[in-house]
């Protein structure tokens, strides 16, 4: 039994193959964040109350820079997807549109600011 409507069958256009992209990217970023977040928490805990020189030295290590850039990208992608679901659940009308736009902008600006700060420190 097909769950598609007769009109959909006639048009034959399908879902543009993007029907599960939100769900899939949320899982993909979640899987990436499991090792990245555990590494992040332990690494920062080991730094403790670090002096400026210590923290800059740590951030300048190429492995740390790469891991942190990946961490920032995965974190803000995941954040955007997660907050989007919450807004879609609880907010309606124009407030929903405005909230979704603000969330997207905030996540993009934050991710970019974080990456550029890291590059400024490490390059």
């Amino acid at each position, binding site marked *: 039994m097909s769950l598609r409507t007769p009109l959909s069958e006639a048009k034959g256009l399908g879902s543009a193959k993007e029907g599960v992209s939100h769900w899939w990217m949320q899982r993909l970023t979640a899987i990436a964040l499991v090792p990245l977040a555990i590494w992040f928490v332990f690494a920062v*805990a080991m730094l403790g109350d670090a002096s400026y020189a210590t923290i800059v030295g740590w951030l300048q290590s190429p492995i740390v820079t790469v891991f942190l850039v990946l961490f920032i990208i995965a974190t803000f992608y995941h954040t955007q997807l997660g907050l989007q679901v919450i807004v879609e659940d609880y907010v309606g009308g124009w407030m929903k549109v405005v909230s979704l736009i603000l969330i997207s902008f905030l996540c993009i600006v934050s991710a970019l600011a974080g990456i550029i700060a890291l590059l400024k420190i490490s390059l």
Partner: protein
Amino acid sequence: MANLQRPLSPHLQIYRWPLAMAISILHRVTGVALSVGAVLFVVILVAVAAGPVSYELIRGYIATTMGQIFLLLWTFALFLHLFNGVRHLFWDAGYGFQKSTTTKSGIFVLIVTTVLTAVVWCAAYLTCKV
């Protein structure tokens, strides 16, 4: 026109909180809290990039008791969201839907979260003497 004077069914506050419901709500709450945390992390990175003066300012805030309590809650929220997220991934793969299993995995998530939060903080205090 709907009659707006009709009594509302009491909802959230009248039900006993099953563990699954409490953890599900906590997953969302920690998700929102961690979103704020992610932005704060970027603020710290920008402060480091801006130079020692702004970094020392933030370092001063973090060193206060309030700052440390905040960081402790942050660690707990991150691990809770992370391990409950892994629990969700198992559900996505089709495992662990038995009612008894969901209760067990929920308790497991809470235990692992508490233990790892304690491990991180003990390690931090032992190695760095914050």
